[in-house]
C-alpha cells in the first residue's frame, strides 16, 4: 500500500487537487459558500492594497484632468451659474410639491417607509472573473454593510451586496445573469422582470405580456416587489421592444441608467428587506 502511494504520489496529489474542487463545484453548484476565516484573511489583505492603488490612480487622473479642465473654465462657470439659477427655481417648485405630498400623506394616514442614512462607498475594483459581474467597494461589515443591501447612485440602481467582509464588500451588478429585479414601467405601471444579460452593457426585460403598454424609451423603475430594492428607483430605459408573432410575452432590452463600467462612488441603502410598512390600525383606511 505504502509502496503504491509512494510510487503514484504525484498523480494522486494532482488528482486530488482536481477532484476535490470539481466535486465541490458540482455538488454545491452555483450557490457559492460563505466566506471562511481564510477567505476573510485574503480579502482583508487585499482591500488596503486596492484602496491605496485606487486613491493613487484617481489622484493622478484628477491632477491631469485639472490641467485640461482649466481651458474654457470661464465660459463653463458662466454657463453653470445660469444653469444653477434655473435649477434653484425647479428645486423650489419641487420643495413645494414635497411639502404638499407630505401633507396629503398625513391626511391619508400613509406611513412612509423611509430608511436610515445611506452609506457612501468608493469602488475599488472589479472582480477578476467575467463569469460573475461584481465589484468591490471600500465599506464592509465593519461600517454596517450587510448582505442583501441595495446599492444605488443618484442616477439609478447599481446592484446588491452579496458579500461583506471587514472593511470591504462585493456588489453583484445589475448586468450579471444572476441578478433579477422586479421592474415597473414608470409611464403605464406595467410590471415585469429585469435580468442581467451577461455582457456588462444591457439587461433583459422578461414577463411583460405582449398586449401591455410598453414602447421604446419608457423608463423602467423598481417595483419594490422583489424584497430587495425600494420601489421607484430608476433601473434604465426600454429599448428594442418587439412583439413576436407567437408567444405570450414581448421581448426587449433595458439600457441601465447607470454606466456600471465608470462608477467611482455608490450609495448603500441600509435595509436588507424593503418590505412595505404596514399602516397603523387607527390610521388605516
Amino acid at each position: 500500500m505504502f509502496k503504491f502511494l509512494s510510487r503514484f504520489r504525484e498523480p494522486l496529489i494532482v488528482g486530488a487537487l482536481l477532484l476535490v474542487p470539481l466535486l465541490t463545484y458540482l455538488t454545491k453548484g452555483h450557490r457559492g459558500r460563505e466566506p471562511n476565516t481564510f477567505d476573510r484573511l485574503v480579502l482583508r489583505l487585499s482591500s488596503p492594497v486596492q484602496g491605496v492603488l485606487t486613491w493613487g490612480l484617481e489622484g493622478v487622473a484628477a491632477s491631469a484632468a485639472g490641467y485640461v479642465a482649466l481651458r474654457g473654465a470661464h465660459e463653463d462657470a458662466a454657463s453653470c451659474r445660469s444653469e444653477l439659477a434655473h435649477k434653484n427655481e425647479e428645486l423650489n417648485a419641487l420643495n413645494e410639491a414635497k411639502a404638499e405630498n407630505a401633507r396629503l400623506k398625513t391626511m391619508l394616514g400613509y406611513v412612509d417607509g423611509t430608511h436610515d442614512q445611506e452609506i457612501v462607498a468608493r469602488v475599488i475594483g472589479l472582480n477578476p472573473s467575467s463569469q460573475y459581474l461584481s465589484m468591490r467597494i471600500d465599506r464592509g461589515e465593519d461600517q454596517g454593510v450587510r448582505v442583501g443591501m441595495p446599492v444605488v447612485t443618484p442616477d439609478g440602481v447599481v446592484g446588491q451586496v452579496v458579500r461583506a467582509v471587514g472593511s470591504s464588500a462585493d456588489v453583484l451588478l445589475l448586468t450579471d445573469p444572476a441578478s433579477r429585479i422586479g421592474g415597473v414601467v414608470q409611464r403605464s405601471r406595467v410590471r415585469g422582470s429585469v435580468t442581467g444579460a451577461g455582457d456588462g452593457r444591457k439587461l433583459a426585460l422578461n414577463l411583460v405580456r405582449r398586449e401591455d403598454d410598453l414602447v421604446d424609451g419608457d423608463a423602467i423603475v423598481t417595483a419594490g416587489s422583489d424584497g430587495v430594492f425600494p420601489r421607484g428607483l430608476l433601473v434604465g430605459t426600454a429599448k428594442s421592444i418587439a412583439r413576436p408573432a407567437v408567444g405570450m410575452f414581448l421581448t426587449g432590452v433595458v439600457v441601465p441608467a447607470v454606466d456600471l463600467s465608470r462608477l467611482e462612488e455608490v450609495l448603500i441603502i441600509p435595509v436588507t428587506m424593503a418590505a412595505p410598512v404596514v399602516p397603523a390600525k387607527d390610521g388605516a383606511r
Partner: protein
Amino acid sequence: MKFLGFSALALLLLSVEEVLVKTFSFEVTRIDVGLAIVVYVATRGTTIEGALSAFSVGYLLDVFTSKPTGLYPFLAVLTFVLVRLVAQVVDGRSRASYGLLVAGATAGHAVLAMFFTWLTSSDEVHVLSLSGVPLQTFLTTAAGVALWPLFRKIEPGERPDPGVLS
C-alpha cells in the same frame, strides 16, 4: 516552498488587476494574471510545487470572484495539467513560446469557465461573457510576457522531470 512565493505574488497581482480593470472601465474583459502564473509553473516547476501553486492561484481567484464555488481551483489545476501535456510537444520555456502558451491557456480557460458555469446554471446568457475574450487573451499574454522575469526570480530552474505528471 516556491508555491508560497507564487501564492503571495498572485494575491498581489489579483488585487492590482481588480483596480486596473475598474480604472480601464472594462465590462467583461479581464487580465488573467493568475493564469500566467499557472502556465509558468506548468512549464518550469516540479509537479507537486506546480500543482499546489496552480491550486493556490485558483483558490485566490475563486475568493476574489465574490462567489467562491470551487470552479476556479479546479480549472487552474486542469489548465496546469493541459499545459503540461502541450509542453510535451511544444517547448514553452522560452519567453516567446511561453507567451503563446499563455494566449492558448487564456482562451481555453475562458471557454471552460463558461461551459462549467452553463452546466450548473439554467441561464443561457453566459455565452455573452465570451465577447471580451480576444482582448483578454491579448492583455493576459502581454502581462505574462512582461512579468516573465519576475516569475524567473521565484522559479529560475528548468523543469527537471519529463512527462506530464512525473
